């Protein structure tokens, strides 16, 4: 059974395992730093659909389907499906879940959704409420621009702090664990849900700065609860603060918690696109799909090969709405951490 330690950390003694995972993406993502690591790449942004919203649903469905194919399972064999996305009313997830017919729980954690969905799926398995659960998320550059910013073809300039919403989706299949990390199969051994943190950033074009305090609070709180140090982890992976937010995270952790991330930190926002795309990408990748692609396309398989053994994955989400910045509200952010282990 699960056990709560410190203020906010939950230990999952059963260690639910992530037995299958897959990432899918658009052409720009497929040609970036994760080239060759996607289960499927869609060269056409529309994915053959007649709206960006449908394209994103299709993307998320493709990630879920690829994951089920890898696991060799039918949708009816899955007990619960946790998913979320950025579109209004989590529509990309709900519409993609239509065809799967798995009991569905929609989640909203903005860009933290990959970590959030895995955390809740892992807790469901730990408590015995499910034997197999699917966790997934997606984002689509065009659908996100349409909803949150400007029409695609509008001729505006993006500030250097802006991030680029990834066209990508990821899904993980979680199964009951055996209490020990199995060889070649990453497992979820601890979960740390973050608090809402808001240090007053109002600039919706600087999400990294808005989310860094939440990430620092979750990483600092987790290390305190578990009485561990940065050196105990092969990687502390945040997603997705981008270059500006990563810089601020290091400063906040050092100033407020006395924690030096040294060389153990990386951020999904800096791991997706190529550096020579910097002109358009600005401060890095963002969107639910960015951390989903990095985790499901790269990190989990590196853990399966035991290149990485202990990874604290921290999904960060900026929980603003389309109208809140216009009403002068600052941006509340949240960061959910999961400790992934392999052997």
């Amino acid at each position, binding site marked *: 059974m699960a056990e709560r330690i410190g203020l906010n950390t939950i230990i999952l003694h059963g260690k639910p395992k992530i037995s299958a995972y897959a990432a899918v993406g658009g052409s720009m993502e497929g040609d970036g730093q994760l080239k060759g690591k996607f289960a499927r790449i869609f060269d056409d942004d529309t994915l053959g659909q007649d*709206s*960006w919203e449908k394209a994103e649903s299709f993307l998320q469905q493709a990630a879920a389907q690829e994951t089920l194919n890898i696991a060799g399972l039918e949708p009816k064999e899955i007990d619960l499906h946790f998913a979320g996305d950025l579109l209004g009313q989590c529509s990309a997830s709900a519409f993609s879940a239509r065809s799967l017919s798995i009991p569905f729980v929609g989640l909203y954690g903005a860009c933290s959704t990959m970590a959030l969905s895995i955390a809740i799926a892992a807790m469901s398995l730990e408590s015995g409420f499910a034997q197999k659960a699917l966790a997934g998320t997606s984002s689509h550059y065009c659908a996100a621009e349409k909803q949150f910013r400007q*029409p*695609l*073809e509008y*001729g505006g300039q993006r500030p*250097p702090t802006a991030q680029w919403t990834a066209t990508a989706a990821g899904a993980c299949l979680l199964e009951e664990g055996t209490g020990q990390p199995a060889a070649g199969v990453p497992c979820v051994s601890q979960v740390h849900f973050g608090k809402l943190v808001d240090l007053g950033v109002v600039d919706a074009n600087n999400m990294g700065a808005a989310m860094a305090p939440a990430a620092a609070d979750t990483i600092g709180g987790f290390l305190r609860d578990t009485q561990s140090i940065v050196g105990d982890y092969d990687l502390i992976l945040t997603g997705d603060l981008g270059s*500006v937010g990563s810089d601020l995270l290091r400063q906040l952790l050092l100033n407020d918690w006395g924690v030096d991330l040294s060389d153990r930190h990386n951020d999904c926002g800096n791991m997706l696109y190529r550096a020579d795309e910097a002109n358009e990408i600005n401060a890095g990748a963002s969107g639910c799909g960015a951390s989903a692609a990095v985790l499901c396309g790269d990190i989990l398989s590196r853990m399966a090969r035991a290149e990485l053994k202990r990874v604290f994955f921290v999904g960060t989400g900026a929980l603003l709405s389309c109208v809140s910045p216009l009403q002068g509200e600052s941006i509340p952010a949240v960061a959910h951490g999961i400790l992934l282990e392999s052997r």
Partner: protein
Amino acid sequence: MTSPENYKKMVEEASPNSKLAANTIKAFLIGGLVCILGELFYMLLRRLGLPEEQVRMLVPVTLIGIAVVLTALGIYDKIARHAGAGTIVPITGFANAVASPAMEFQSEGRILGTGANIFKMAGPVIVFGVGSAVVYGVVYWLLEVRF
């Protein structure tokens, strides 16, 4: 713990600024090019013997046409990424601001999609443009009546 005030300073230091000098020069050059293009059309149409009044209407219509075609082909936003105000301020920017939401919201249908959203970007320009024209008109009228 870092206070919001201190964090604001940290964010300012960590956030790179826009390249003001380079952006200004590019906006000046590309915006200037748009104006030269307008001037060239003006000279060409005058040389074809069209009356001044028609030419004054045809030049902006031509520039609007070009901007809408470039928007539809997905080229306008790529130029604008460099040009900034250089492509927003001329009449081409207004054309782009009307054409881009018209394209974007096609998926919601002709009336509640394109129709309802076509002035999403240009709406504020129209509202405040018409508003300031009214104020200007009132001032002009008062001056004319008074003096």
